[in-house]
Structure formats: structure tokens, C-alpha cells
């Protein structure tokens, strides 16, 4: 067997592996694309910390910003909390509903969190985790933008900012029901 050229197969075989590993720098293993985008959002029916019921059905026709948070989620949930409240105040009369879902939390800690940021939009605990699994939540904070027809359109993983919220909401508000 002619080894003169064939021998260089040995080092050459290493190259595709190195290329694949280099590709790995462009990906983030912690970011999982959501299969829910474009699909109808899962129904939920929860009781807020104030004792009132809130459900997705009751919000049909509005654009819904569904935010998953927890009091132990430091620092991201604390960073985005003021932005959530600001967004709510700016958009509540434009047909937008902001709903917060608190997961895997203790009630006192959650109430303290809410009191600290003075959230005026409804927040409800999800004691069994059913809603968070229904939305494929794998970390906090995560925010889902649901259009008027009840479809999930955008998912924000990580802390929300005013700009991101605004840009998504403006797009969805332009659409008819």
C-alpha cells in the first residue's frame, strides 16, 4: 500500500473534529429554542396572591405578556422587575395584559418580592409547576408574548428590558384579533 500520500490522512482526520469544536463557540448550550413559537398557548387558570382568579381564556383578545419569576432568582428577576412594572403601566390601556407566575417559591419570600417592586399587575404562584412545564420553562426569568388569538409569538429568556418588551408588544398590538 502506498504510504507516501496516505500517511497524511492521519493528521488530516483531526481537522473536521477541530472545526466542529470551533463551531461550538458560536452556540450556547444553555439556550434551548422553544417549540411553542407560533403554536396556541397552553391554557392556565391560577389564583393570584391577592386571591383573585386569572386565566388565559379570560384574556382572549388581549396581547398577553406572561412572565415567570422567583424571589430566589438573583439577579435577573430583580433587574427586570422595574421594567415589567413600567411596561405594564405604559401598555395597560392599550389592550395588553401582564401576568406574573411565581414558581418554586415560598409565599412570604414571594410577597416580599412583590411588595418591594410594587407590582400592580396580577401575580400568581404555580405550586405544582404545571403551568411552567406547560410553557416549557427551564429557568427563570422567562417571558412569553402571546398574541390576541392566543398564540405564543416570542419568548424572552433572561431578564427583560423596556426595549425588548416594547418592540414585541408594538408588533403584536398592530395585529387584528
Amino acid at each position, binding site marked *: 500500500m502506498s*504510504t507516501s500520500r496516505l*500517511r*497524511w490522512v*492521519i*493528521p488530516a482526520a*483531526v*481537522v473536521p*473534529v*477541530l472545526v*466542529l*469544536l*470551533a*463551531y*461550538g*463557540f458560536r*452556540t450556547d*448550550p*444553555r439556550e*434551548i*429554542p422553544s417549540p411553542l413559537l407560533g403554536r396556541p398557548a397552553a391554557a392556565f387558570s391560577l389564583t393570584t396572591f391577592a386571591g383573585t382568579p386569572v386565566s388565559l381564556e379570560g384574556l382572549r383578545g388581549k396581547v398577553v405578556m406572561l412572565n415567570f419569576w422567583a424571589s*430566589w*432568582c*438573583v439577579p435577573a428577576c430583580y433587574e427586570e422587575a422595574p421594567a415589567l412594572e413600567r411596561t405594564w403601566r405604559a401598555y395597560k390601556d392599550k389592550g395588553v395584559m401582564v401576568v406574573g407566575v411565581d414558581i418554586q417559591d*415560598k409565599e412570604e419570600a414571594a410577597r416580599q418580592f412583590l411588595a418591594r417592586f410594587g407590582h400592580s399587575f396580577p401575580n400568581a404562584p404555580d405550586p405544582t409547576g404545571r403551568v411552567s412545564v406547560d410553557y416549557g420553562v427551564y429557568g427563570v426569568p422567562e417571558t412569553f408574548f402571546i398574541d390576541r388569538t392566543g398564540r405564543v409569538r416570542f419568548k424572552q429568556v433572561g431578564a427583560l428590558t423596556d426595549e425588548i418588551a416594547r418592540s414585541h408588544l408594538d408588533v403584536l398590538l398592530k395585529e387584528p384579533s
Partner: protein
Amino acid sequence: MIPELGYGATVAAFVLALWGAVAAAMSARTGRAALLRSGERAAVGAWVLITACIALMLYAFLTFDFSVQYVAVNTNRGTPFYYRITALWGALEGSIVLWSWMLSIYTLIVVVQYRRRQPELYPWVLSVMLGILAFFLLVMTIPAPPFERLTPIPADGRGLNPLLQDSGMITHPVALYLGFTGFTVPFAFAMAALVVGRTGEEWITITRRWTIIAWYFLSLGLLIGGWWSCHVLGWGGYWAWDPVENAAFMPWLTGTAFLHSVMIQERRSMLKLWNLALIILTFGLTIFGTFLTRSGIIGSVHSFTQGSIGVFFLGFLALVLLGSFSLLASRIERLRAEGVLDSVVTRESMFLLNNLFLVAATFTVFFGTVFPLLSEAVRGVKISVGAPFFNLVNIPVFLALLFLMGVGPLIAWRRASGANLKRNFLKPVVAGLVAAGTLRALGVANGLVLTAMALVVFVAGTIALDLFRAVRARRRSGDDWGAATWGLLLRQNRRYGGFIVHLGILVISLGVAGSQAWSVQKEVTLDRGQSMELAGYQVRFDGLSGSEESNHAKVTGTFTVTNGRAGGDVLHPAKKFYPQEQTPIAAVDYRLGFFEDIYLVLGDFASDGSHATVKLQVNRMVSWLWLGGLVLTLGAALAILPDARRPA
């Protein structure tokens, strides 16, 4: 002060190591001894400076010097004394310091051992080792400097990762790194042998002990990691096929293959090309392992961080693999096999099969680990490759390896005859089948366990038979059984050290098979005073209590466990709340037994202690893994003893 001093020492060490590598290489090409001496002095200097770095860092830890960022991130005023020392290697930057220090020590040992004994190979070996050391020092200088200054100086630090505050985590990285860095020496000798053209058995004979020691520490590191996983992580399992676990397992697999295949080259002058490729692969996999842990390209419970450090490691990996394989390719004519076989069933072919299975397992683990990356690159879809895949694909290979472990050592070199086979294997095969049959009769239906048991008894039988016959032969010269056995073990320590290592692997295999087949678990929410039952154990929830430790708050559950046979035992699984962590850390409580361990993991609980969720796990045969590790230690120790006939 300390940050600046430390940084200075790091840079100086890097310059010295780099100079030493160049000087040693130049001395080999020009023959000027002065350059070689200069390289040696550089090696000593690098070691001194790295030791100084470690001393500075330890001083900073012990004096709560939070001006050093590494100290501030990894300890706080509540961190216990001994953890402040082990925090040195608890995070990324410190781990590189430890690695560099070990490399520098190994380099010094190489200097002392070989400067007179191997004048032709030695300069190149020194050059390669200093070059590798220089790389790690470069990492310490640019992407991961341990001596970053933190301003303003905080009043208190963040604290050591609670998962690392455990005895297993003190020893696991040390053992693992001793293993990884240990393989640098055979690799350096392989490179030297290629450059110089001395591609015979020499470099293998010289590095034989290094290989065994490195292999042993790698095995130990993996076992300690399994122990830690079992007892600290809270899931009661010892191996999850996590990408970083795989990354440490792969060099172990190829290292084991290398350990065996070099014996063929030593005796028969065959497989020269293969052995060189195997040590390059093994060393490359150790670098790949550190790359994977630190680059963050594959998500893992172990991953330290992301950032530019990954680029450095990938670059180095590329340099090492492309460089050494190209060197190998260019010298390929010198690597012809010299021996011949007289039949096809020989020990050589058994060793080849051994290598095939080990490398196949390596390929499988590698492919499974990077496949999510490949899938994303090709299809843009994220998928997972987890334990079910690795278990399914690797089990047949490991069973085959068990079989070879029994067959290999007793088939003759060069040719085997039917009589030889029958003589050596008939009784052990029968013993294996009888063992499996007995188990079956006792009610064990799990095919995996039956097969594993049959193989284990078969292999143990071959070892016992060989030992018995050899001791009996020795006895003819007048010794009693004890002296004959002892004398035999010492005289042929390589062979019997290897056999004892095999026995250790057998014990571990039994542990793995048993725990896979027979472990059970159950999770229940209990009210106070209520009990749950599993596998003959009753667990009663008695209450909760809270406490404040030096650096965390703790909620401890009290559970009384009875199993009808002995009296009750009280276990205290807890949940620890560290201020710097987002979610609480579970502290498992357990009782170990020869055949059975029980674990209790505290889950969710009500603040008033009225009820709590607890998971009881009854693991069978897990203790055999640790016992096997002990046997392994004895075998490795025997194998590296100096030869009885010639000086070491």
C-alpha cells in the same frame, strides 16, 4: 501587593518555561550542552516561581485577603479553614495553577532521572514538557489569571461553591490532575523518540512506570468522582455520562489500551505506529478534557466558565494533535512491525481485540458527547445524548472486555494450541457457568447481572488457576505456600500486579452490574410521624430543625429508619441554604453497607415542619466500587515495584 507579586511570578515562570523549551530543543539540534543546562535551570526556576504563586495564594486565602479577586470569589469569612486551602483548586484559575505546578514537578523529576541516562532523548523530552508547561502558564497569564486585583476590596467574599465543600472534592481534582499530567511524560518521550528516530521499545520501557502511575491516578480520580457524586450531589448515583465525566473517561479508556498494547511492542516489536498514535490520542484527550470543562461549549454540571479560555485550549489542542500526528506521519517508514505470529489465536490478537474494544468505546463516548453539537451544526436542532445511549452502546463492549481479561493473559504469545486453551480455560469456564446457574436458581433473572457474574467468576477463575499453578511450581523448590506466593508476587510483580488490578476491575464490574440491576428508589411526602416503606426499610418522618452554620443556614430533617433486622437508626438529611447560591443544596444522609447502601434526600418541606418530601434510595452493591478501588491500588502498587532482578 499579593496580586502584583503573583502576576509577576506567573509571567516570569512563563518566560522561563518558554525559554527552557527553546533552549533544550536548540541544544539537541546544535549539540551545545550549555543550552541544555540553561533549559534545566529554566525548569527549576519555573517550578520555584509556580510554588511561590501557590504560597502567595494560600497566604491570601488564610489571611482573608479579598484584594485578590480569586480569594474574594471563592471564600468568605465563614469558610472553614481547610476549605480555604482547598479552594485553591476549587475554581478555574486555581485549577490551572495546580495543573502547572504538577507539570513543573514532573518536569523536574524527568530532569533528575534522565539527564544522564538518556542523553539522546532527554533534550527533546525536556523541550516538549517545558513547552506544554509554557502553554499552561500562558493560560495563567492571559485568559485566566489567578492574581487579578479586585477594587474596591469587598468586606466579605462570596464563598466556596457548596458542592465543593466536601472531602471528595478535596481529593478528586488532585488525583485526576495527577493522572492527566502524568500522561505528559510518555507523550513527551514518544515525541522525542519520533524526532530522534529511536522508535523501538526504548521509549516504552522507560515510561512504563509513568504510564501505570498516571493510569492509576486517573482511575482513582474517576472513582473519587463517583463517590462524590453518590454522596454529595443528592441523586445517589455515581456516574451520569455527563460530558465532563466522559471527557475524563476517554483518556482513561485509551490509556488502558495503551498500557496493554505497549506490551506487544516490548515483546514482539509490533504495533509501533499504533502505540505512538495511542499515546498522542491519550494526551490529546486530556487536553480535550480540560478544553471541554472550561470552554462551555457543551453544557454540563461541571462546566467552569466561558470566555476566551476555550479558544486558547482549542488552539493548543489543534497544535498538539496536528503537530504530533504530522510528525508521526512523516516518520512512518521507521515504524514497521518486526515480529511474526504463528497462529491467529495468540495473546497478540487478544491484545488487539482489547485495544479495539477500548478504542471503540472511546469513539462511542466521544461521538455521543459531541453529537449534540453536530446536530445543532447540521440541522440547527438541539438534542440530548444521555445515559440510556451510553449504557446501551457501551455495555456489550465492556462485557467483551471482561471476557478478554480472562482469556488474554493465559493464551500463549505467538501461538496457542488447543491443548493449551483447554488446560487453561476449561475449569474457569465451567466455574463461570456454574456461578451464573446458581444465581439463576436463586431467582436472579436479570440477564446483564447473570452474564456479568459468569464473566467475573470466569476471569477470577483464570487468575486463581494461574496463581495456583505458579505457586505450586515454586513450592517444588521447597518454600511453603505463604513464602512461595509472596516470592512469586514479588518476582513477577508486573504480571501479578496486573492480575490484581484485573481483580479490582472485576469487583468494580460486579458493583456496577449489581447497582444497575437492583437499586430501587421511592419518593413520598410524609406528615410528621408518618412512615414509608421500601425494600424492607421503614422510614418515619420525625421532624425538622433549623440551624445556622458558619457560612450557610441549614434545615435538617430527622428520620428514623428501621429494617426489622437491626434496631432503628436516625438519619439527618438536610437542605443547606448558602446566601450566594440561588437554590438550596441537598445534603444527603446515608448508611453504607457491604451489599446495600441507603440514602435519604430531603426534598420540599413545609416551614412549620408538618410535612416533608423525602426520597429513599436503596443502592445495592455500590460499596463494591470503592472496594474495587482499594484492590486496584494494591495491584498498581505491586506492578510498579522495582524489578527484583535488576535495579530500578
